[in-house]
């Protein structure tokens, strides 16, 4: 790779491990002044970890970070900020109730006499920075009154206010409309002209080819390739991202499809998704793939009755049902294992058996009273089926390890004897061993005749587990792929909206 001059910032041989996971393995990354480097990789490839290393939130186990050729050590986020490295995050970290100028200078506001904040200077400098960015934002405005795009500008202005020399943009366009994205491109061009080194993280290939000068591809925490964007094609990038043999690590399944378990027709929501129709058979695993923000979880929550769709019908085993609340869904045999199991799954201050039986209380009650013997029997049956090891079913769930808490959550749903189970990112954040266990288990569920919907952003999982895949993009079904058509390339192609995705 030919280099214009010395990199503004470089990582060399950086490794970061977490218990059970090697998040980064000997990766290198170079950012040049006045150039945009695109960081590409699927979820779990290590992009977020790199951002956290660059901004001093994580400290690498080994490897070197250099700024302008000088070795540096970012022990704290403040160290990175002092070195001029700043990140603009996916969900912009700003304060809705504060004024624009206050947001820009929070933590480093100019001080006047007696150490008080010099509001006049602060406002003037905020205005200068915003004007320099070409942003028409009033520094007096309250942040919550601004649109998403302008909030991004404020975040970028905040980065400028600390004299940033390296700007990290983590999926900056995820929440922007098309015109706003165009404005962002102009802004990035402006930053380039000022000589900033920019790291641009995106899943969208059109953006990468529009804006980046260089690319770096990560996969499974390793550097796969880098170079000038001019010398690479979309297909080559996709191959670098996903290219691996995924067939053998997944359980072999005999696909024995039964009758139709679930049929959804024309599900609509005013802002989140539109025209979702599909059907699902007993014993089938249906994958839902898409980029973050493609509307998969939003649709699933509507299907489960948490939000209300504006149109659409659901049939379960051939009979039309109305689902207006999670209680309706559970009683109709649909259960949802949410993505954030810590927050939405288990109740930490309740014992195991009470967690397991929570959605099944009606079944273990007689005349309005709980039958404790039946409750224990139900809890024991399903915890044993999942091989949950705990001293006693009286143990509070909060005292269990993460893996065991997950088993409690799954036992809870199986105890309702569902017909359709929705698993939202079932292995997100898991290490290889627990992933394999979850996949094994999913295959078992399907073999027992359950209809499984698996929402996942992990391509190997989708490819390895699904009988059929629905790819969503921008709230709509972009493609429905049969077993034979599911390849990493077609998935990424449909999800990212690449017109022709051959590899």
């Amino acid at each position, binding site marked *: 790779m030919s280099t214009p001059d010395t990199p503004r910032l470089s990582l060399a041989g950086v490794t970061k491990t977490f218990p059970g996971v090697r998040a980064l393995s000997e990766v290198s990354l170079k950012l040049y002044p006045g150039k945009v480097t695109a960081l590409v990789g699927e979820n779990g490839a290590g992009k977020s970890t790199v951002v956290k290393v660059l901004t001093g939130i994580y400290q690498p186990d080994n490897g070197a970070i250099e700024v302008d050729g000088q070795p540096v050590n970012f022990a704290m986020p403040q160290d990175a900020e002092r070195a001029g490295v700043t990140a603009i995050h996916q969900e912009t970290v700003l304060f809705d109730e504060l004024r624009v100028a206050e947001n820009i200078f929070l933590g480093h506001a100019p001080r006047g006499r007696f150490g008080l904040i010099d509001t006049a200077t602060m406002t003037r400098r905020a205005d200068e920075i915003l004007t320099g960015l070409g942003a028409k934002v009033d520094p007096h405005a309250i942040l919550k009154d601004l649109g998403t795009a302008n909030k991004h500008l404020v975040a970028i202005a905040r980065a400028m206010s600390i004299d940033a020399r390296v700007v990290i943009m983590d999926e900056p366009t995820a929440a922007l409309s098309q015109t706003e994205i165009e404005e962002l491109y102009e802004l990035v061009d402006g930053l380039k002209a000022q000589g900033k080194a920019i790291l641009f993280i995106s899943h969208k290939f059109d953006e990468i080819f529009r804006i980046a000068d260089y690319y770096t591809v990560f996969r499974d925490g390793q550097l796969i390739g880098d170079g000038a964007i001019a010398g690479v094609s979309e297909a080559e990038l996709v191959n670098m991202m996903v290219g691996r043999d995924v067939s053998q690590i997944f359980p072999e399944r005999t696909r024995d499809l039964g009758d139709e378990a679930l049929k959804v027709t024309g599900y609509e929501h005013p802002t989140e998704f539109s025209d979702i129709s599909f059907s699902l058979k007993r014993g089938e695993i249906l994958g839902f793939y898409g980029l973050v923000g493609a509307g998969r979880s939003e649709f699933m929550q509507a299907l489960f009755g948490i939000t209300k769709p504006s149109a659409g019908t659901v049939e379960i085993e051939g009979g039309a049902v109305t689902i207006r609340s999670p*209680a309706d869904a559970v009683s109709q045999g649909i259960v949802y294992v949410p993505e954030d199991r810590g927050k939405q799954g288990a109740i930490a201050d309740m014992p195991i058996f009470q967690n397991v039986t929570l959605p099944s209380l009606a079944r273990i009650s007689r005349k309005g009273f709980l039958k404790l013997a039946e409750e224990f029997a139900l809890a024991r049956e399903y915890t044993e089926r999942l091989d949950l090891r705990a001293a006693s079913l009286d143990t509070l769930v909060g005292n269990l390890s993460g893996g065991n808490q997950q088993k409690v959550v799954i036992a809870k749903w199986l105890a309702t004897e569902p017909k359709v189970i929705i698993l939202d990112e079932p292995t997100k954040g898991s290490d290889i061993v627990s992933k394999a266990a979850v996949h094994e288990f999913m295959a078992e569920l399907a073999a027992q005749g359950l209809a499984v919907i698996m929402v996942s952003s992990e391509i190997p999982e989708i490819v390895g587990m699904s009988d059929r895949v629905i790819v969503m993009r921008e709230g709509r079904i972009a493609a429905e792929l049969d077993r034979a058509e599911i390849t990493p390339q077609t998935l990424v192609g449909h999800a990212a909206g690449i017109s022709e995705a051959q590899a």
Partner: protein
Amino acid sequence: MKKLLASREILLLVAIGVLLAIISLRFPAFVAPANLLVVFNDTSPLILLAIGQMIVILTKCIDLSVAANLALTGMVVSLVNIMAPGLPVLFIIIIAIGFGTLLGMINGLLVWKLAIPPIVVTLGTMTIFRGTIFLLTKGKWVNSHEMSDAFKAVPRTDVLGLPILSWIAIAAVIIFSIMMTRTPLGRAFYAAGGNPHAATYAGINVGKTQFWAFTISGAIAGLTGYLWVSRFAVAYVDVAGGFELTVVAACVIGGVSIMGGIGTVYGALLGALFLGIIANALPVVNISPFWQMAISGGAIIVAVVLNAQANRTKGRIILKRAEHAT
């Protein structure tokens, strides 16, 4: 953790024992069984209200309107008694429970349907309830001689050596501990407060559960309203003024987590007894009421510190060794 929770209640029981021992040094007659029964009877209204409040706090809410509900319902039944002196007391009690339930439902509906923070809702209804008493009476008192004898007699009537007031408190402890441990609704209270998200996914309507908590709290406050005005044979605007804070204090001392999801009927009972003993003992041992407030306040802080220690998250178990040890 279950052991720890039990031990927290045992700890409180020990604290009550120590308190009684100290008092008996100064005034041995206080711990005579007959006097302790008097103290229990005197604490019964606090026990009742603390049980209702405990249920509300379990669901991550708070009911500041209990004392005002008590006062308003007490006034309403007093006025009913004046207008219809011959109405049997059983109907008076039904009216008290019904009216209190209604007031509780107002709180519950505002919290459930309009999603207004419970502290704001009940602060508002607290003031409205008190103001309503003033509107009903123009600030006048209902005095002993205006109430019928039957109306005044019920809470004081002895049955098997205990006044009915005490029996009602005992019955409430039994009924509500069964409800909390043995019914789906009782379980829902714990789930809704322990983790509202998880409860929602489990098919529990969190808002509706909170509504029922406020309704129960209101019903208990209404019943206590009748018991209170008939026992003291007087009803006026400021009956039980500020008592809602004593009720919350009893819950907190009794180990009910203000964050929701943790608490038992027995905890509320013990917390109320602790405060009841202090309130009854200090005057007889000649300690100024200001000390009483300081001691109650100290007990609250100690209880909160103990609860915070017990509930501190132990962090993630990463070491294999530690996992096997648990």
